[in-house]
C-alpha cells in the first residue's frame, strides 16, 4: 500500500542528513509503528510523506504510484494526518473541527454540503464522542482532542492514516482506549495506519509491524515479537532490559 524506498532528507543550509535512506512498506488494513528515540527523525519522516517537507532522494509510493508531484488536495485524499500538538486560535466546536476534514472535497468558493455534515456526524459516532459535538475544542481533555482529530481523519476518507505520537499526553486508560480505537478503524475500514509510539510494549501489543529507526537510519523492521529484543533496545536506547512472557505476550522491562 504505502512504500518508502531509500528516502533521504536534510534541512536547508545543513550538512547532515536527518533521514538517511529510510525504506519500509505498510500494508492495507494493518498498523505499522515507527519506534525510535527522541530526535531520530520520526516526525521528519511524516512531514516528508505528507509533502510538507521535500526529500531530496528516494521515492514514496501509494498503490505503486509515486506521490512526489501531487497537489496538497490530492495528497489529503491519500493521507489523513493526526498531528502531534495542536491549539487552534479560536474556540471552534468539536463538530466544526471534525468537519474541517472535508476540506479537500469542498470547492474554494463553497461550503460543506448536507452530505459533509452527515459524514462528520457519523465519524463522531464511530469514535464515540457525539456528546461532545457542540463543546469548544479548546475546552476538552487531551484524550477527547485525540478522538476528535481521529474523527477528523476518518471524514477525510483517505486510505492511509498517519498518527504522530497519538497517545503522548494521555493517561493509561486513554492510551489503551485510543490505540484500541485505532486498531478497530484499521481493521473495519481497511485503512493503512502508520503511527509513532515511544513505548515498545504498546507498540508490540497493537501493531502488525514495527519499524525501528535511530538517528535517521532504519535499524530493524518486522513482526514486533521477533524484532523487539533485549539486544535491540540496548543498541538503540542504551538501557538494560529484560524480556519476559505473560500469556504469550512478550514484555520489555527495564533493569535498574
Amino acid at each position: 500500500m504505502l512504500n518508502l524506498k531509500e528516502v533521504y532528507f536534510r534541512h536547508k543550509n545543513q550538512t547532515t542528513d536527518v533521514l538517511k535512506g529510510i525504506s519500509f512498506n505498510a500494508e492495507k488494513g494493518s498498523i505499522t509503528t515507527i519506534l525510535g528515540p527522541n530526535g531520530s527523525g520520526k516526525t521528519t519522516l511524516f512531514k516528508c510523506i505528507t509533502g510538507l517537507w521535500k526529500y531530496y532522494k528516494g521515492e514514496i509510493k501509494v498503490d505503486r504510484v509515486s506521490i512526489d508531484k501531487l497537489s496538497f488536495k490530492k495528497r489529503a485524499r491519500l493521507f489523513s494526518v493526526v498531528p502531534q500538538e495542536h491549539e487552534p486560535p479560536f474556540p471552534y466546536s468539536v463538530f466544526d473541527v471534525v468537519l474541517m476534514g472535508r476540506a479537500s472535497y469542498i470547492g474554494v468558493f463553497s461550503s460543506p454540503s448536507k452530505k459533509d455534515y452527515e459524514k462528520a456526524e457519523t465519524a463522531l459516532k464511530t469514535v464515540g464522542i457525539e456528546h461532545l459535538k457542540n463543546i469548544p475544542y479548546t475546552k476538552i481533555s487531551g484524550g477527547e482532542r485525540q478522538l476528535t482529530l481521529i474523527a477528523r481523519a476518518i471524514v477525510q476518507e483517505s486510505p492511509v492514516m498517519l498518527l504522530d505520537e497519538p497517545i503522548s499526553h494521555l493517561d493509561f486508560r486513554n492510551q489503551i482506549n485510543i490505540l484500541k480505537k485505532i486498531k478497530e478503524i484499521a481493521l473495519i475500514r481497511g485503512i493503512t495506519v502508520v503511527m509513532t509510539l515511544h513505548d515498545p510494549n504498546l507498540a508490540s501489543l497493537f501493531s502488525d509491524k514495527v519499524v525501528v529507526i535511530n538517528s535517521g537510519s532504519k535499524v530493524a523492521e518486522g513482526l514486533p515479537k521477533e524484532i523487539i529484543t533485549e539486544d535491540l533496545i540496548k543498541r538503540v536506547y542504551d538501557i538494560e532490559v529484560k524480556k519476559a512472557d505473560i500469556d504469550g505476550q512478550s514484555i520489555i522491562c527495564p533493569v535498574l
Partner: protein
Amino acid sequence: MKTIKAILILLSPIFVGWFALFLGAYEVTPLMVLKILLNETLHIFEIGDIPEKAIVIDIRLPRVILAGIVGACLSGAGVTLQGIFRNPLVDPFILGISAGAAFGCAITIGFLSNIPIQFMAFVFAVSAVVIAYTVARTQGEVSRLPLILSGVIVSAFFTALVSIVKFLVDPHKLQSIVYWLIGSFSLADWKAVKVSFVGVILGILPIFLMRWRLNVMSMGEEEAKALGVNVLRERVLFIGFSTLAVAVATSLCGIIGWVGLMVPHLVRMLTGPDHKTLVPLSFAAGASFMIAADTISRTLTSFDIPVGIITALTGAPFFIYLMKRSGKEAWGK
C-alpha cells in the same frame, strides 16, 4: 438562542439605518421617513416637493447606505485577516492596509487626477500588506507580535509618505486631502454609493463565498496543507479580496480605524467562532456599527465630527481590553 441572536444581528442594519434616517439637525418624523421611502419605491401617494424629501432621499439615505457598506467592508476585511493570520488582534488599520490605501488616494488627489483613485488605493494597500506580512514571516510561520509590529512600521511608513504628499501639493488640494484623510461620510452622495458597490462585488461577495475555508486556514499553515488546502493560493485570494474592500472603502471616506478589529470580536462572543456564520454576521454588525457611529458623529454636536474619531475613541480602549483579557496567549504563536 444562537439563531435568535444571529437573526437579530442580520436585521440590525435595517433598524439602525431607520433610526439614522430620522435623526439629525433637521427634524423629520419617523412616520414621514416611512412615507417618503414608500413614495420613492412604490409611488403610492403623492407628497409633493417638501424639503424633508430632499433631506431623506438625497442626503441621509446615501450617507446611511455608504456608511453601512463601508462598515461591512472594513469588518469583513478584519474578520478575514484575523482568520488567515490566526491573530485576533489584527485588522486593516493595524496591518497598515488603510495607510497604504490612503497614500494611494493622496497621490491620486495630489498629482494623478486622471487615474481612478480606487486603483491606486488598491495598489498601495496590497503593497502595504505584502510588506507587513513578509517582514513578520520567519520560517514559514507568522507569529502574532511580529505581525502587529511590522503592521505598525508599515503604517508609520505610509503615513510619512502621505505627509510628504501633503507637503508638496498646492494648498487647494491639500485641504481636500486633509479633510478626506480624517475619515468622514459628510461628502456621501449617490455616486459614492455606486462606487462602494464595487467593494461589495469584488471584495465582500467572494469572501462570503469562501468563508468556510477560513476555519481551515486558521488552523495554521501545516495543518491546512495536510487537510488539502492550497494555502498560498487561498491566502493570496483572501488578502486580495479583503484589501480590495478596504481600498474601495478608504477611497470613499478616508481612514476609519478599529471597526475591523472590534466588530468580529463582538460577533464571535455572541454567536461563536465558526466563520460560516461569523463572516456574514460581521458584515451586518459592521454595517450597523458604522451607521450608528456616523449618526452619533453628526448629531452629537451642531457640526459633523469625523466618524474616524468616534471609532478610535471606542476602538483603542477595546484593544486594551482584549490585550488584558487574553493576556499572554494573545501574544503567543
